[in-house]
C-alpha cells in the first residue's frame, strides 16, 4: 500500500506526523517516533519570549546582589560560556537530525520581527528540513484592529521567507473573522504549507485559591471537525500544502482529513494519551481500511471529500450547521 505523500516539497513515507509538543524534547522519543513509523516530526517550538525571559532572569539573578557587600562581590561563578540564544533548542535539533532519517521540521514562536527572522535562520542553519511558524498572537488591546493583527502575521511570514531557503509552513488558529481571506493572503507570500489549527492555551480559574491557572487540555476526537471543515474548504484553492491537526486519534480520523484535502495529519494528544507506538497502530489500520476499500494510494482519496469535490459544498458552510440542528428534532 502506498501511504507516501509530499509535504512542503519533502517526500514522506506516510502522512502521520507528530506535531510540535513535549514528546519531541527527548531524543529517545524522536527515535521511537521514527521506529513507530512517523513520516516526519515537527519538533517542539522554540519560543523567543522564553529565551528573552531566560536571559533577563539569568541577568537579574546573577547580578541582583553583586557588589553590595564586602565579603561577596557576587553569588555565582563567573558566567562563562553561557549560551542564551536558543542554543539548547538548536543543539537538540542537530541531535535529532543525527538520530533519525525522517525529515525534522523546526517550529518557531517569535516575539519581535527581528527575532522571527534571526531564529528562523538559526533553525535553518542547524539543519531543519523545513520550518513551521507557530504564530500565536492574542491581542487584548482593543485599539489594535484585526487588520493590524493580520498584517503582523503577513509581515512575519514575508520576512522569514526572505531570509531562509528551507520550506516554511504557517500554523494558524481558527479565530479570524475571515480565515479564508488571511489564508489566501498568506498563500500569496509563497508559504509552502498551512497547518490547521493551533489550539490556544485556555486559562482556568481555581475557585478555592482565586487564581487563574494554566490548564492544558488535550484535544479530543471532537476537535477534528474544525480542521476537517477548513481543510475541505481550502483544498484546491491554495497553492500551499494543507496539514491538519487537532483531534486526530485514529486511522479513520487521518483518512477523513486526507479526503478533505490534507497532505499530512499531525497528532500529539493521542500520542500523549496512548504512547508513541500508537503511530504504528494508526498506520496499520489506515492500510487495512484502504485495502478493504480498495484504495491504492492516498493520492486517490486526497481531496475527494473537499468543498470543490463534493456534490453539495454548502454542507461545509452554514447550511451544515442548520442541518445538524435540525437533526436533533
Amino acid at each position, binding site marked *: 500500500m502506498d501511504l507516501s505523500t509530499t509535504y512542503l516539497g519533502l517526500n514522506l513515507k506516510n502522512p502521520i506526523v507528530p506535531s510540535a509538543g513535549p514528546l519531541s524534547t527527548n531524543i529517545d522519543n524522536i527515535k521511537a517516533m521514527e521506529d513507530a513509523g512517523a513520516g516526519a516530526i515537527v519538533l517542539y517550538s522554540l519560543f523567543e519570549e522564553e*529565551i528573552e525571559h531566560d536571559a533577563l532572569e539569568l541577568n537579574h539573578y546573577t547580578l541582583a546582589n553583586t*557588589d553590595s557587600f564586602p*565579603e*561577596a*562581590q557576587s553569588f555565582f561563578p563567573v558566567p562563562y560560556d553561557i549560551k542564551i540564544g536558543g542554543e539548547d533548542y538548536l543543539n537538540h535539533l542537530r541531535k535529532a537530525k543525527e538520530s533519525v532519517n525522517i525529515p525534522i521540521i523546526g517550529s518557531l514562536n517569535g516575539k519581535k520581527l527581528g527575532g522571527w527572522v534571526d531564529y528562523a535562520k538559526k533553525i535553518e542553519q542547524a539543519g531543519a528540513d523545513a520550518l513551521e511558524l507557530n504564530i500565536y498572537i492574542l491581542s487584548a488591546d482593543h485599539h489594535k484592529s484585526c487588520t493590524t493583527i493580520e498584517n503582523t502575521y503577513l509581515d512575519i511570514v514575508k520576512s522569514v521567507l526572505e531570509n531562509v531557503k528551507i520550506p516554511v509552513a504557517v500554523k494558524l488558529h481558527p479565530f479570524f473573522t475571515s480565515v479564508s481571506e488571511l489564508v489566501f493572503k498568506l498563500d500569496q507570500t509563497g508559504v509552502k504549507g498551512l497547518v490547521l489549527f493551533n489550539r490556544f492555551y485556555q486559562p482556568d480559574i481555581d475557585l478555592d485559591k482565586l487564581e487563574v491557572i494554566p490548564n492544558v487540555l488535550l484535544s479530543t476526537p471532537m476537535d477534528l471537525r474544525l480542521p476537517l471543515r477548513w481543510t475541505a474548504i481550502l483544498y484546491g484553492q491554495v497553492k500551499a500544502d494543507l496539514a491538519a491537526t487537532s483531534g486526530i486519534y485514529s486511522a479513520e480520523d487521518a483518512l477523513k482529513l486526507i479526503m478533505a484535502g490534507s497532505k499530512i495529519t499531525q497528532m500529539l494528544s493521542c500520542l500523549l494519551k496512548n504512547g508513541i507506538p500508537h503511530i504504528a497502530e494508526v498506520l496499520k489500520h489506515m492500510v487495512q481500511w484502504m485495502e478493504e476499500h480498495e484504495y491504492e494510494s492516498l493520492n486517490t482519496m486526497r481531496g475527494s471529500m473537499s468543498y470543490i469535490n463534493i456534490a453539495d459544498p454548502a454542507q461545509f458552510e452554514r447550511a451544515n450547521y442548520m442541518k445538524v440542528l435540525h437533526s436533533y428534532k
Partner: protein
Amino acid sequence: MERKKVTIDGNEAAAYVAFRTNEVIAIYPITPSSNMGEWCDAWAAENKKNIWNETPIVSELQSEGGASGSVHGALQTGSLTTTFTASQGLLLMIPNMFKIAGELTSTVFHVSARSIAAQALSIFGDHSDVMATRSTGFALLSSNSVQEVMDFALISQAATLKSRVPFLHFFDGFRTSHEVMKIEQLTENDIRSMISDEMVIAHRNRALTPDNPFMRGTAQNPDVYFQGRETVNQFYIDCPGIVQDQMNIFAKLTGRQYNLFDYYGASDAERIIVMMGSGAEAVEETVEYLTSKGEKVGILKVRLYRPFSIDHFINALPNSTKVITVLDRTKEPGASGEPLYLDIVNAISEKHINGELKFAYPKITGGRYGLSSKEFTPAMIKGVFDEMKKSKPKNHFTIGIVDDLTHTSLDYDASFSVEPDETFRGKFYGLGADGTVGANKNSIKIIGEGTKYFAQGYFVYDSKKSGSTTVSHLRFGPKEIKSTYLINKANFIACHQQGFLEKMDMLDDAAEGATFLLNTLIPKDKVWNFLPEKVQQDLIEKKMKLYIIDAYKVGEETGMGVRINTIMQTCFFAISKIFPKDEAIDMIKKSIKKTYGSKGEKIVQMNFDAVDKTLANLFEVDIPAHVTSKIKLADAVSANAPEFVQEVTARIISGHGDSIPVSMMPIDGTYPTGTAMWEKRNIALDVPVWDDEICIQCNKCVIVCPHASIRAKVYDEKLLSNAPATFKSTKFKGKDLGEGMAYSLQIAVEDCTGCGLCVDVCPVKNKKETKLKAINMNQQLPIKEAERANWDYFLGLPEYDRTKLNISAIKDSQFLVPLFEFSGACSGCGETPYVKLVSQLFGDRAVIANATGCSSIYGGNLPTTPWTKNKEGRGPAWSNSLFEDNAEFGFGFRLSIDAHNSQAKNLIKKYSNEIGGDLVDAILSADQKDETGIYDQRERVKMLKEKLTAFMNEGFDGDKLSDLTHLISLADYLVKKSVWIMGGDGWAYDIGYGGLDHVLASGKNVNVLVLDTEVYSNTGGQASKSTPRGAVAKFAAAGKTMPKKDLGQIAMTYGNIYVAKVAMGANDLQTLKAFIEAEAYDGPSLIIAYSHCIAHGIDMETGMKNQKAAVDSGHWPLFRYNPDLIKEGKNPFKLESKGLKIPFKDYAYMETRYKMLTKSHPDLAAKLIEEAQHDTEVKWKTYEQMAALPGNDK
C-alpha cells in the same frame, strides 16, 4: 616588548600566576581571599591551562586545615601545589606550614592579609595573620600593589623552587586584594622563562613514590630532633640571595627591578620609615612630596621579611640615616614591640655591635597603623615624619586613631594632602542594588584600557546585607597612582540615590570647582529647593557645578529598573569629558557588549537603550548665589536612644566611627544588645499595609517576617481610647485569650526592608479584588510619619502574658515578643525567621553560640545588633567565637551553665534550713518544661534571692558569707537556660562537622540550629557538602556532581539525638513543633532548617514557595526524630511531608543555581538533574521505610 595592560584586582593578579604555575590547587573560602580560589575554579571549569598545557585540579576542602593538609599531601607526592587564604584560615594552616617548611618543600601560599579575630572579628586588612606564621619557616614576601602581586607571585614561585623554602606571598586584604588597578600582565613566556623544567622535575623527584620508596615524617627523640631541626639552616641563609637573583632575572624580563629592601627618598635622608604592605605606597607618595619641599626623608620598603637578611637591610639604608621609625600593621599585646620593629632594632644592634654600621646608632621607634584597613593617609605619614624630628620621638605609638587612654597616638594635621592635581578623583555614592560599584569597575576598565592613563578603583561597602550603601573611589591620570587610601579631595562626586542627601554629607570632601552629579526624581527647575542646607552651602562656597539626571525614569523606560549603573556611567563620561562624546558612547557600548554579550541580545540592547536615552535626560543646574534651604542632615539615631547608642553607635552609623577615641570603646568586645531598634534605616520604598477588614488573624505574616517588622498584639480593647487616629485595630477573633480583646497588626515601616514575604504568605484574598490580600505593599513615604506614631503606640501596648498563650499554635506563638529584630540581613532572608522564632520562644533564657557566617554578621556586625531584650530586661546572650569551633563553643556554655546550676543546687541544699525546706524542694523539683514552669521557677528564685539578701544583711561571715555570696551570684542558674548553637551549612556540614558530631554525641542538652542555605552564603555562594547535586555554586562552577550530605540521617544513627528537618514555607506548624520539642528534649537536638537565600538566584519575595517546592519534590523531607518516643515504645521517626509530589526539576528550575547549568552545560545539567531525581527518590524511600517501622510497642 609591549605587554597587555589589564585592569584587575590583587586577587585576580595572584590567581593569574598561581593558576599557571601549579598542578593542584586546594581551596577554601575566606574573605578577602575567596576570589583567588573562585577565579581558579572558574578557569578550571573553562578548561584553561597552566604553562604545562594542563588544567590544574582545583579542589575545595572542608576547612583551611583540610586545604593545607591536602596541599601538604600533593606536595609530598610531587605536584606543584598552592592555596589561598587569610586570617583565621591562615591560622588553621599553621600546623601544616611547619611540616611543609620542615620538609623543605617548595610551594607558595597566596595570602590576602587580614585581621585576626580578637575582641571582635574583622574581615579587613592588616598583617596580624601573617605575623602569626613567622615561626613556621615559611619565607614571607610582601607585595604592596596590584602590579607587585602579579610580579611577586611569579618571583616567589621561582624562588621557592630554587631555594626549597616554602613561601607565603602576602598583600593587604581589601586595599590590595580588592583594589582594581591598571597593570601590565605577565605573558605565558614570562612565566615559563622564570619556572624552569629542571626545578619542577627536581621538586617532583623528591616525591613519595613506591617506585623509589622512602619515608618522610618520622618521630624523633631528644637525641636527634634538635640536630635535625638545624639541618635546614643553609637553605635559609641562601634564600634571600636566591630571591634577589630571581628579582634580577625578573627585572631583565620586564624592566621592573625589585630588591629585598627598596629605598625611596632623599639620598641624604635622615628620617626613614621602614614598613611593608600597601601603606608603603602612600608613604612613597608622601616622601616624593616632602622631598620636593626639601625634607630629608625616605622610605625603606621591606619585600622579603623572612628570611630576614640583615645585610641587605643595612645596605639599603642611606648613610645619612639618623632616625628610623618602623611601622607595623599588627599588634602584639604585651610584646616589647611589634615584630618588624624588633627585627629592625635587632638588625641595627647586631651591626652596631659588630662595628659594621655605616652610620651612628640611630634613634629607632616603632608604631602601629592601619589595623583592620584603618585609613593610612599622607596626613598621618606626615605626622609620623614630624614626630621623628623631635629630640625624643614617641615610641610604640599609634597613628590614625585617638588613644586617650594610654596616649599612644600621634597628633597630625588631617587636612594635609599630597594628591597630585593632574589625577582625577571621583567618589560615587550608591546602593548595592543599583549597580554603582559594577558601573565604576567598568568605567575604570574603559579608562584603563582605552587610554594611557593610570587608573585605580577602590570600593567601600557598609556591613548590611540589605539596603547597603557603597562608595566607589576612582582615580585616573597620567601619573602613576600610589594613593593607597580613600579619596578625601574629590573633583567629581556622584550621588546615585536621592535619599542619601539627608543621610550623609557627601560634599564635605569636594574640592573647589568639583562637579556634583545627582540622580533625582525632582525636575531641574525645582531641585535646588530640595537640597539640604549643607549641600547648597558647599555647592556655592566651593564653586561647584551641579548636574541632575532622573535615572529611575530612564531605567523604567528602558527595562533597566532600579539597576541604573549604565545610566549613571553614561552621565559620568558625558560630564567628565575624558573622551569626546561619541567616542565615549562607543566605548561604553563596546564594554556593554563585552560584559553582557554572553547573556543574550536582549540584555545588550536594553543597556544600549539606556545609554542612548540618558543624555537627553541629563541637565546642568544653575547654582544660585545664596543658600535658601532649611533642610538639615538627619540625626543618626533618636534623641531617646541610650547613652552608648548616642555617643558611640550613632557616630558609627553616620560614618564617623574613625573619630571615636579609644576610651569610648568597650575594653573587651562587650556591647549592649537592643541597638538595631535605634537605627531607622528607611530602606523600603514599599511596605506592607494591613487590611484589618479581611484579615483572619492567622499571624502567618508575623512568623515569616525576616526582620520582625510585622508584629501582632492582642490586648484589652479599652486601651484603644488614646490610640493615634490612624492606628488600626479590630476585634480579636477567638475567645481563648479573654473577652473584649482587640487585635492589631502593626508594621515598623522604618525598619521594614520591603521584601514582600508577608504578602506572599498571606492566605486571604480580597473577594472583590483578588489581587489584594489582607496585607498589601504600598509606598512607604506617604505613611511614614503616621506609622511611626502608630509603631510607638503599639510598642506601648502591654504584651499578652506568655504563660497563658498556647505557644504550640502558630497564632499564639506570634504574640511572643521577638528578641531578634531589624537585622541587616538580606531583604527576604530565609534564615532570620528561624532565628527570630528561637528568640520568641526561648530568648529570655537563651545563650547563643553563633558560628561565623551570615548569621554572625547580621547578628553581630557593628554598628548595631538585632539581638534585644524584653521589658523585664531579659534576652538572648550572644557570642561568636570562630567558624570552626561553634559547636564546641556552645558546648562550653552548657558545661559552664551546668556547673553553675549544680553549684547553686548544692548550696541551696546545704542551706536548706536557713532558706526553708519547702522552697528548696520546690526549686530542686521544679518542672521547667513550659512557660508556666519557667515563670514559677523565676518567682521561686526571686524569693530565694530576697531571702539571701536578707541573710546577708544579718551579717554572716566566714564560709557562710562566702557560700551565700556565691549563691546570690549563681541563683539565676536555677532557672533553666537554653543553649543554642547556630550556624550555616558551611559550619555544620564542613568546617565544624567534627566538633558538631562530637557535641551531638555528648548527650548534653544543647540545641543546634543549622540554617541550611546549601551554600556558603556569607562569602558569596561557595559549595558546601550541603550543596545539592546539579546546583551551580562557586567552587562547583560546572555544577556539583556529588549528592548532598544527609546530616539528619547521620545524626539519627546515634539514636539519642533529637533531629528535625524543617522548612517554614512548607509547614510552619511542623517547624514550630520541632523547635519546641527540640528545646524541651533533655539531650542534644539538631534542627536543620531550609533557608532560601539570594545565593539560590530566586525571587526572595516568594522564597517560601521555593521552600514548599523543595519539600514537595522530596528534596527536603520534613521529619521529626524524637528519642523520647522510644521510651514510650513508639517509632521515634515521623515523616511529615508528602514527598515526590512534583519532579525534582520542577523545584530545581525555579532557581538560577540549577537553571544556569542548563545554559552553560546543558548535557551535564540533564544528567545531573536526572541523578538528583534518583537521589531524591532513594532518600525518600529510605525515609518512608524508617517511618513505617513499628515501635517497640508493636
